[in-house]
C-alpha cells in the first residue's frame, strides 16, 4: 500500500504532460496572433482605421398580389429615404440646421428620431425622413460634402394599385414594433430587427411569411464622408465576404376579380356598407369590399399624423372591414333559414298555407307584419316572395330556438368562416344556453318569433350571409371562403395551392332546398316579388331583400318615410342572393348602412355584380342568342 504522498507522486508524469499540452495550445494561440498581427496586420490595420467594411441589409422584394383576372394589385417600388449615419456625422449643429431647411423638419423632430436608436451601433443608418421628393433627393445628393453623415438610402415601398377598393383586403405593412419583436421572433424563428417591415393587417399580415422573402446582405466600403460603394474583394483577404443575394418573396394569386371589385366600389361609392361575392362551388371570394376605405400605402410611406387621426375619428370607421368585423341584423334575409328549419322539421310542407291578416298574437303581445293590410292566404313561396313576417313567425311557434340555431350554425351563422384574415367576428346565433350564460335569464318564445325573421339577437357579417346563400344554392355545402388561390415563387412556379374545402354539409334532400330557391327566384322574377325591379331573363337572379331598423320605432314614427329620418336612424338595407337561379355560379350579399330599403339600395349592387360576373366568366349563360 502506498501512502498518500507517494500516490500523488505517481501522478507527476501526467501533471507534467498536462502542463506540456497547455503550453503547446498556448503556443498555438500565439501562432494565431502572430498570423493576424504580423502576416495580416497591415491589411487589418487599414480596415480598422478606415472602418471601411460594413455589412448592410439588401431588402428582399416583397411578393406581388395578383388578381383573379391577372392584374397586379399590389407591387413594390423604390422609396428614397434621408438617413443619418452617426459615425460620419460632423459639425452636428451646422449640418442639422442645413438639413432642417432641406427636409422641412424641425430640429426637435430630427433629434427625436435619432434618440430612438441610442443603443444601436453608430455605423447603422437611421431614417430621418421617408419617401423623399425628387427635389429633396437632388438637394442632398448634389451637395453631399455639405452634409457629412447624411445620405439617401433606397428601400422598397409597397404600391397599392387602386388602393381604396382593396384596402381592407390587402391590409398594409409597417415597421415591426417593439411589442411584436419578441413575439414574432419566437413565432417565425427568425431574427427580426427593429425597422423590418411586416404585414400588419389583411392579406399582408395573413400571408406575411409567403410574401416576405429573405433579406440578403451586402458588404460595402465607406469613405470618410460615409459614402459607400460595393465591396470588391481585390486582395482576396475576406475570402467569403461576398454579397448574399436576397430571395424575393412569393407572389400571391388571389381570388378577387379586379374588374368586379372596381365595379363594386363604384356601386357603393358615397355609401357606407359592404359586399361579398362568392363562387358557390369553390368558396372562392370574387369580390369583397367595405366602404369607406383608406389608403394602405400611407402606412409604409411614413404615416401622416393628420391622416391617421382623421381615419380614427371618422364615425364611419374606414379602418374597419365591414365584411367581417362588423355584424348586422340579417333581417328578412334570414327568413329562409326559418323556412328551411320548418321544412326539415316537417312543421310545414311546401304546400302549407297560413293566413296573414297583418299581425299575429303570442300571449298578449302582437307581432305585426310589415304589410298592415296583411298578405291574405300565404304559401311558402309567396311568404318568401313577399317577405310575410306572419308566415315565418307561425313556423317559429312550433320551432325551438335551439333547433333553429342548429340549422343556422350549419349554414355558418354564429361561427367564424375561417377566412384567412385577422379579426373576423363570429356574429351571433342565440340559443337557450347562450342566453342563460350572457343574460342569466330563460329564453322566451317571443324571442324565437323575433329571431325567426332575423331580428332580436341574430347578428351576421356580410361574409357569413353571402356564404350561407352560397350553401343554399349549391345543395347545402358550406364552403370555407378562400381568398388566396395560389402562392407562386418569383420564377413562376406554384408552390402552394388552396383547394376548395367543405366545412359543413347540411345534408338534406335537394327538393327541399329547391323550394327555398324557387321562393327566392320569385322575389326577383315574380310580379309581386319584393325585388321585382331586377327581373332579368338572362341573369336569372334569385335573392332576398331585408330592411332592418336600427332604432326603436318610437324614435322615427313621426316621419313619413325612411328617407326623411336623420341619417343614423335610417334602416339598414340588406340583399342576399345568387345567380343564375337554375345553375348557380355566384352568391352575393350586400349591406348598405342606413340605405332604407333592401331592394332599392342593396339590390342594385348585387344585381349588377352578378350580371357582370356572368358576362365575364359564363358568357354562354347570358348570351341573348341562346
Amino acid at each position, binding site marked *: *500500500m*502506498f501512502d*498518500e*504522498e*507517494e*500516490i*500523488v507522486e*505517481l*501522478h*507527476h508524469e*501526467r*501533471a*507534467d*504532460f*498536462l*502542463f506540456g499540452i*497547455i*503550453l503547446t*495550445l*498556448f503556443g*498555438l*494561440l*500565439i501562432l*494565431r*496572433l*502572430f498570423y*493576424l*498581427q*504580423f502576416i*495580416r*496586420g*497591415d*491589411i*487589418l*490595420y487599414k*480596415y*480598422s*482605421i478606415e*472602418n471601411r*467594411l460594413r*455589412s448592410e441589409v439588401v431588402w428582399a422584394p416583397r411578393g406581388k398580389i395578383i388578381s383573379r383576372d391577372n392584374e397586379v394589385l399590389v407591387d413594390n417600388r423604390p422609396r428614397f429615404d434621408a438617413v443619418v449615419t452617426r*459615425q460620419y456625422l460632423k459639425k452636428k449643429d451646422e449640418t442639422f440646421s442645413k438639413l432642417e431647411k432641406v427636409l422641412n423638419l424641425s430640429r426637435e423632430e430630427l433629434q427625436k428620431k435619432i434618440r430612438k436608436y*441610442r*443603443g*444601436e*451601433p*453608430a*455605423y447603422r443608418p437611421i431614417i430621418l425622413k421617408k419617401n423623399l421628393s425628387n427635389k429633396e433627393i437632388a438637394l442632398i445628393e448634389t451637395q453631399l460634402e455639405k452634409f457629412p453623415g447624411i445620405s439617401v438610402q433606397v428601400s422598397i415601398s409597397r404600391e397599392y394599385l387602386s388602393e381604396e377598393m382593396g384596402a381592407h383586403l390587402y391590409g398594409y405593412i409597417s415597421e415591426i414594433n417593439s411589442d411584436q419583436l419578441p413575439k414574432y421572433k419566437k413565432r417565425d*424563428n427568425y*431574427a427580426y430587427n427593429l425597422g423590418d417591415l411586416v404585414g400588419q393587417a389583411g392579406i399582408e399580415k395573413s400571408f406575411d411569411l409567403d410574401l416576405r422573402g*429573405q*433579406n*440578403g*446582405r451586402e458588404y460595402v466600403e465607406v469613405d470618410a464622408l460615409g459614402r459607400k460603394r460595393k465591396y470588391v474583394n481585390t486582395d482576396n483577404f*475576406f*475570402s*467569403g*465576404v*461576398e454579397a*448574399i443575394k436576397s430571395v424575393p418573396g412569393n407572389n400571391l394569386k388571389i381570388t378577387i376579380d379586379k374588374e368586379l371589385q372596381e365595379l363594386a366600389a363604384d356601386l357603393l361609392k358615397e355609401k357606407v356598407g359592404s359586399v361579398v361575392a362568392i363562387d358557390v362551388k369553390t368558396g372562392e371570394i370574387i369580390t369583397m369590399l367595405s366602404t369607406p376605405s383608406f389608403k394602405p400605402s400611407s402606412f409604409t410611406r411614413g404615416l401622416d399624423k393628420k391622416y391617421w387621426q382623421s381615419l380614427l375619428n371618422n364615425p364611419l370607421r374606414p379602418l374597419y372591414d365591414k365584411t367581417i368585423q362588423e355584424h348586422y341584423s340579417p333581417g328578412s334575409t334570414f327568413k329562409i333559414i326559418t323556412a328551411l328549419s320548418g321544412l326539415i322539421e316537417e312543421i310545414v310542407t311546401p304546400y302549407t298555407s297560413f293566413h296573414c291578416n297583418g299581425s299575429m298574437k303570442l300571449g298578449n303581445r302582437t307581432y305585426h307584419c310589415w304589410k298592415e293590410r296583411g298578405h291574405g292566404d300565404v304559401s311558402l313561396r309567396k311568404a318568401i316572395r313577399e317577405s310575410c313576417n306572419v308566415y315565418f313567425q307561425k313556423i317559429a311557434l312550433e320551432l325551438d330556438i335551439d333547433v333553429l340555431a342548429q340549422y343556422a350554425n350549419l349554414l355558418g351563422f354564429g361561427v367564424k368562416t375561417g377566412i384567412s384574415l385577422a379579426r373576423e367576428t363570429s356574429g351571433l346565433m342565440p340559443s337557450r344556453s347562450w342566453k342563460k350564460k350572457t343574460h342569466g335569464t330563460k329564453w322566451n318564445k317571443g324571442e324565437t318569433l323575433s329571431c325567426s325573421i332575423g331580428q332580436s339577437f341574430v347578428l351576421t357579417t356580410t361574409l357569413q350571409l353571402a356564404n350561407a346563400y352560397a350553401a343554399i344554392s349549391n345543395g347545402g355545402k358550406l364552403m370555407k371562403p378562400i381568398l388566396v388561390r395560389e402562392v407562386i415563387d418569383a420564377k413562376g412556379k406554384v408552390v402552394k395551392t388552396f383547394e376548395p374545402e367543405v366545412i359543413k354539409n347540411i345534408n338534406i334532400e335537394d327538393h327541399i332546398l329547391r323550394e327555398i330557391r324557387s321562393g327566392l327566384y320569385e322575389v326577383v322574377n315574380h310580379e309581386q316579388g319584393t325585388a321585382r325591379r331586377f327581373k332579368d331573363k338572362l341573369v336569372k337572379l334569385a335573392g332576398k331583400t331585408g330592411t332592418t331598423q336600427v332604432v326603436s320605432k318610437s324614435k322615427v314614427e313621426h316621419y313619413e318615410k325612411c328617407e326623411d329620418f336623420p341619417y343614423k336612424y335610417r334602416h339598414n338595407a340588406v340583399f342576399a342572393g345568387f345567380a343564375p337561379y337554375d345553375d348557380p355560379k355566384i352568391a352575393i350579399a350586400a349591406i348598405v348602412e342606413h340605405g332604407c330599403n333592401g331592394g332599392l339600395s342593396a339590390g342594385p349592387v348585387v344585381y349588377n355584380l352578378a350580371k357582370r360576373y356572368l358576362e365575364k366568366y359564363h358568357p354562354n349563360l347570358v348570351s341573348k342568342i341562346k
Partner: protein
Amino acid sequence: MSLRKKTLKFDFSLIFCMIGLFLIGIFNLYSITEGQSKSYLVSYQIVWFCLSLSIAFGFSFISSNNLLRYSYWIFFFNILLLILVLVLGKVGMGAQRWIGIGPIRIQPSEFMKLSLIFALARWFSEKSPDQSVSLKETLLPLAFVLPPMFLIYKQPDLGTSLILLIIYSFIIFYRGLHWKSIFKVAGLILLAGILMYSFLLKSYQKKRILTFLNPYEDAKDAGYNAIQSEIAIGSGLFWGKGFNKSSQASLNFLPEKHTDFVFSIFSEEHGFFGSVILIILFALLFYRLISIAKDANRIFDSIFVIGVVAIFFSHIFVNIGMVSGILPIVGLPLPFMSYGGSSLLLFGMCIGFVNSISTSRTIF
C-alpha cells in the same frame, strides 16, 4: 496556527497572478467602456473583484478535510439550484440562467464547474488511487457529469456544459487513463458531438458553429462579429495602438465587447507584445497550479487542483481561441478580465481553495 502565521504562508505567486490579471483587466474594461453608457461597469467590476478577493482569502482557511467531507453535498446542492433555475425559467419568460437574491443574480451553472470538481476529486481519490484508472472505471463517474451538463444545456448554455466535459477529461487524463483508451474516448466524444449537432443543438447554436466554420457565409451579424474581432486583433500589430486608442471598441463594431471580446480590444491596444505577455502571465498561473497539484499532500487535493486547471484553461483557451478565429464563438468569459460577477466569484473561489491546499502542504 495563528491567522497571521497562516496568512504568511499563503501562495503569493498565485495571488499575484490573480491581482495582476485583474488589474490588466480593469484598465482594459475602462478603455472599452469609457465615454459610453456602460462606463458604470468598471466600478461594478471593482466591487465584484473585491468580493472575489475576500472570498479567495476566506476560502483559504477552509481545510481540505472539510472539502472532502462535504464534497458530495456541495455537488447535490448545486444540482438542486440548477433544477430551480430551470423551473423558474419555465415560470418566467424564455431563457434564464440565474437566480435572483435581492439585487444579486447568481448563476448556479458557474458554480457547477467547481462543484463537479469536488464530486469527481472525491470519487477518483477513493477508488484505488494508486492504480491508473481504466476506461471502465471512468464510465460510472459520468453520472456526475451528464445530469448537470444536461441541465445547463437546457438553460440553454452550451459553452458551460462543454466545460464540464473538459473538466472530466482533464481529471481522467490525470488519473492515468491509458493512451489507447484516450483515443477510444476521443472517438466516442467526436461521435457524440456529431449526434448532438444533428439532433440536439438549437438553431442559433448551430449557427454559431457554422459561423465559426465559415464566418463569411452568415446572413446575420454573427459572422461579421468574428471578422470585426479579427480586424481588431490584427490591427494591433506588434506594439498595439496604445491604451484607450481602440477604434473597434468605440464604434460598437463588437457586441459583448465587455464580456466575450475583451481580449480583442486588449490585443488591439497592446499588440502582439502585450498579448504574448498576457498569455505568459496565464502560463505562469498554470505553472504554479501544476506545481501545487504535484506537491499536494493527498490525492484528493491534487485532483482538485487539476480540476481548477481545467476550469481556467478551458476559459482562457476557448475565449482567446474564439476571438482570434480558431474556435467557434460560444460565449465564455476570460478569467479576471471579462466583466461579470458570477465568473469573478467562481475564479476567486478556485484561487481560495487552491491556496488553502497549497498552504496546508507546508504545515505538518
